[in-house]
């Protein structure tokens, strides 16, 4: 991979998506992506690229090709039907007086 000709470089290294958990109790949040030859090196590259300034206490890396993503074409059928179903939002409850943590 380091052959000095530039051949067989990044295109051989798959893309990985990086998720960082900022602290205990929070979810892992997508931070970005990187190239790495395998999962172990992806984790190490993620450490060097995305937690340089103390951003995290835990890292996940996922091969980008393993993520099944919705496409823009599917947006209408996937998301529009939820648009007019306001009863799915918890907005019909009266909040009792004195309740602070809701």
């Amino acid at each position, binding site marked *: *991979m*380091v052959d000095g000709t530039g051949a067989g*470089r*990044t295109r051989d*290294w798959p893309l990985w998506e990086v998720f960082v958990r900022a602290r205990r109790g929070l979810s892992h949040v997508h931070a970005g992506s*990187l*190239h*790495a*030859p*395998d999962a*172990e*090196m992806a984790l*190490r*590259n993620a450490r*060097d*690229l995305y937690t*340089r300034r103390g951003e995290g206490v835990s890292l996940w890396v996922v091969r980008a090709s393993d993520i099944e993503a919705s496409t823009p074409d599917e947006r209408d059928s996937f998301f529009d039907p939820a648009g007019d179903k306001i009863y799915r939002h918890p907005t019909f409850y009266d909040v009792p007086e004195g309740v602070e943590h809701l």
Partner: protein
Amino acid sequence: MDQPLFDYTLGLADDALVSAQRMGWWISRAPELEEDVALANIGLDQLGQARTLLTYAGQVEGAGRTEDDLAYLRDDRHFRNVKLVERPMSDFGVAMARLLVVATYQSHLYAGLQGCPDETLAGIAGKAVKEVAYHVDHASHWVLRLGDGTPDSHARMQRALDAEWPYVDELFAPLAGALAGRVVDPSALRGAVLADLARVVGEATLTVPDVPPALGGGRDGLHTEHLGHLLAEMQHLHRSHPGATW
């Protein structure tokens, strides 16, 4: 002045400083952007260790020399690093072989220094020991992948080990007698360090080179011709513009 402690601290500092300068060569040249950042991080860790150690060496000396004075205004005969770290490192296999050796050595050295009676050295070592553990990890992963990779990467990784190994012996030069019991004796680390190295090299399907040691002398200021060139580049700006700041 405590000359043996000054020399010892300077040896640790110069190993780290010269390693950092060599590692800096890789910035913008690493095979991938991700590796570029990783090597820069490692070089900066080494530079940070060098700075605190040089500052402490200056205090031990008691002549008012700062970290900058010691880094930029000494000639090669006054550097106390081992020859291992000063030689060119422009092959990725060599870079990983060297990092594996240096970081494994430092990990044992700093681990021991954490508990030494010298509180300053113990403090510096306590911070550095976590950093070099990551350096060992990074180098090990690359040696494993290149050694146990393609026939070409295997052969090149073996060549890199062969090139570095004659200079491993100098790391274990015995301690000056006056320091016995006060700091870590490098000669006592030989077994543990070589065992760690042999484990990684073996797992990578490579062979520990069976080579006679090169001539030492780095700790006494007797260096290869490469150190002078390295220092010329490293010290040029400071010497041309004394007192320049960012």
